[in-house]
């Protein structure tokens, strides 16, 4: 076998491992954690009956969703109604491709020296790939809202389109500041640029802007205006049932996971292990790699917890407050952050 085929096979294996063995089980775990943590925050027990500590609850939920009747409401736009869950899943799962889980290592596979990266694709355009594909996530919501032919769903879709565009801009500005420091768009270089000090210490404003914007982009509380249960009865997914309804939730949780990973990568040093622990331990390469991946996963886990914590602590914004925050506070702050970082780099 020549090197090209080996690289192709490695890429396919990486996609299968990351998406099917890592992302989707993590999504299942997140649905459980959401319910457990919300229960702890509200002084309840939460689902704890299926399996030890309720660990099998997501499987029970999944089975339930599969066996529910798949209803097509009477006046829906059948084609778009069917497409919306697919459209929303596509960007949610494809953005994980650029996340660096760890450093690279070289090994011999089939007699060829192969450079093994713990990242599906180290793209030249790097972080821009995330920006553009994350912005496609809104189509699922808009199309779902439109196709349902229901005024609440329609309002949800309408809200999401304006909200996503508004918060993409501050998010982009925060990314610009990170790219300025790293001098590269590639996520690997961004991680390597944080070897000594992590980015959130250099640019705390950018960090806060990015975190807030990613809450808005993933439609999580306090920004879940598109699905606001009290006013819109669930918004864009009101008319959906069974597995199509679940698809919206799988997409939401995968978006959360990818966002947490990107916050980690851009501002918390990615797979870097802090305080020079790596140098002190002086382990063989393979262990070093595994510890770095573990460090990355722990940092991501912390942000996933913060996502849940915020959701069950803060109330929802009003729509005008959401727009004011996006355009009048975060956009000028994002520009100011770029100026600060530029001055910092100059002197």
């Amino acid at each position, binding site marked *: 076998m020549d090197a090209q085929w080996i690289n192709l096979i490695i890429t396919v294996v990486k996609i299968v491992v990351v998406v099917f063995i890592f992302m989707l089980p993590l999504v299942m775990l997140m649905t459980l954690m959401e319910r457990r943590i919300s229960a702890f925050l509200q002084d309840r027990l939460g689902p704890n009956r299926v399996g030890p500590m309720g660990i099998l609850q997501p499987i029970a939920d999944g089975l339930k969703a599969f066996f529910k009747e798949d209803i097509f409401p009477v006046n829906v736009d059948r084609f*778009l109604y069917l497409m919306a869950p697919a459209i929303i899943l596509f960007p949610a799962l494809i953005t994980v491709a650029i996340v660096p889980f760890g450093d690279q290592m070289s090994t011999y596979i089939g007699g060829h020296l192969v450079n093994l990266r713990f990242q599906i694709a180290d*793209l*030249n*355009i790097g972080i*821009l*790939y995330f*920006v*553009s*594909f994350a*912005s*496609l996530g*809104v*189509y699922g919501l*808009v*199309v779902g*809202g*439109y196709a349902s032919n229901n005024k609440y769903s*329609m309002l949800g*879709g*309408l809200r999401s*389109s*304006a909200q*996503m*565009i508004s918060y*993409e801009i501050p998010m982009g500005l925060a990314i610009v500041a990170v790219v300025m420091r790293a001098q590269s*768009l590639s996520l690997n270089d961004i991680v390597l640029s944080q070897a000594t000090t992590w980015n959130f210490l250099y640019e705390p404003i950018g960090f806060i802007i990015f975190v807030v914007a990613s809450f808005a982009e993933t439609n999580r509380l306090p920004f879940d205006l598109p699905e606001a249960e009290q006013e819109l009865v669930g918004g864009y997914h009101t008319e959906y049932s069974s597995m199509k309804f679940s698809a919206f939730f799988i997409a939401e949780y995968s978006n959360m996971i990818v966002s947490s990973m990107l916050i980690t990568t851009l501002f918390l040093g990615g797979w870097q292990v802090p305080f020079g622990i790596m140098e002190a331990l002086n382990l063989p390469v393979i262990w070093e790699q595994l510890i770095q991946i573990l460090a990355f996963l722990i940092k991501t886990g912390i942000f996933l917890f913060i996502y849940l914590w915020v959701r069950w602590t803060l109330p929802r914004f009003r729509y005008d407050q959401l727009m004011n925050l996006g*355009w*009048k506070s975060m*956009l*000028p702050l994002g*520009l100011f952050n770029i100026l600060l970082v530029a001055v910092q780099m100059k002197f």
Partner: protein
Amino acid sequence: MLQNILFFVFAILAVAGAVMVISFRNPVYCALSLVLTLFSLAGEYVLLLAHFIAIVHIAVYAGAIVVLFLFVIMLLNIRREERAPGSIKYMVYLGVPLGLVLLYELVSIGFREFTDVYVKATDIGTVEKIGQALFSKYVLPFEITSILLLVAMLGAIYLSKQKLEIVSK
């Protein structure tokens, strides 16, 4: 070989999307077909190794502009395009000759240049090359454009803040 197959897949999708944009009666379907076209064009850019333009194409057009189209369509609640029989009649007389002119241009120039471009496009499309070009050869237009955009952004922020004061009076 794979590149040729991908080229024709994207090309067919782009043309099909463009035809659907003008033939669907439902404006939401038209906007979504436009996304299909833009996406296929981005695929063609990737095949030309112009990664930067491909991803910016998706981010700006598919990610923002068509979302704004959809926002307006849904805000105004345009269900179906009203038929306008009067205007269609003249459009046929005007559209067919113009279409033929465009086809002639494509055949005579487009296909001749195609092989040329395909050979030249090795690394001009990467982020580094575009950055070098922007900050050396085209630095003045680049700076003027960025100042223009900054002024527009500040103007938008200023106007939105001022409106609030008028309301509060």
